[in-house]
């Protein structure tokens, strides 16, 4: 399951997507809006996506992971629109039979997302 949406993300729902009886380990990355950023107090943040292409690229990442780490299941949700400080922008959950694979694959997914998924962020600061 991959999704780019304006709706709030619930990490537990994303984790549940990848849980299978054969998977002992689920590693999850949760990204939240941080403040301060670059020394300035963040008021809120605007994420914009090229949604059709973005979801296609997220599916590509999931396929790359399945090919490289056999038996890994992946779910990725990226939120777009206006997000306040502390809100969740991104959840990636990777499940695999063994934890080493799950950690590696989850880290790969975050790195890859930043490289190829057409999403843009604008930080709006106080003042």
């Amino acid at each position, binding site marked *: 399951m991959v999704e780019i949406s304006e709706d709030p993300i619930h990490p537990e729902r994303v984790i549940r997507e990848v849980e299978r009886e054969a998977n002992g380990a689920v590693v999850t990355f949760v*990204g*939240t*809006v*941080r403040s301060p*950023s670059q020394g300035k107090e963040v008021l809120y943040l605007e*994420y*914009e*996506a*090229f949604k*059709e*292409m*973005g979801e*296609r690229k997220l599916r590509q990442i999931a396929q790359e992971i399945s090919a490289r780490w056999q038996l890994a299941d992946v779910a990725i949700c*990226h939120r777009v629109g206006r997000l306040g400080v502390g809100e969740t*922008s*991104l959840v990636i959950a990777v499940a695999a039979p063994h934890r080493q694979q799950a950690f590696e694959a989850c880290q790969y997914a*975050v790195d890859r*997302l*930043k*490289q*190829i*998924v*057409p*999403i*843009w*962020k*604008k930080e709006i600061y106080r003042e």
Partner: protein
Amino acid sequence: MKIKARFFALYRELTGSSELELEVEEGITVAGLKEKVTRDFPQLQGHAHSLMMAVNSEYAAPDVKLSPGDEIAFLPPLSGGSRG
């Protein structure tokens, strides 16, 4: 022939458009379209080096030839994910 150009984030702000229908010559390439569009929107010129382009939702090399009805996206540098 007619194609559709889409602008995102900074490029949308700079051009003032998110979507444009453009009349271009047959056989134009991705690079050719980029040249034409940065001529039409000079405010894009300072950013042309960091521009990525996608044809029909897939990254496309500069020498790819466009077909009628193609949708070409102008993508500024990506910044998805979180700061973490």
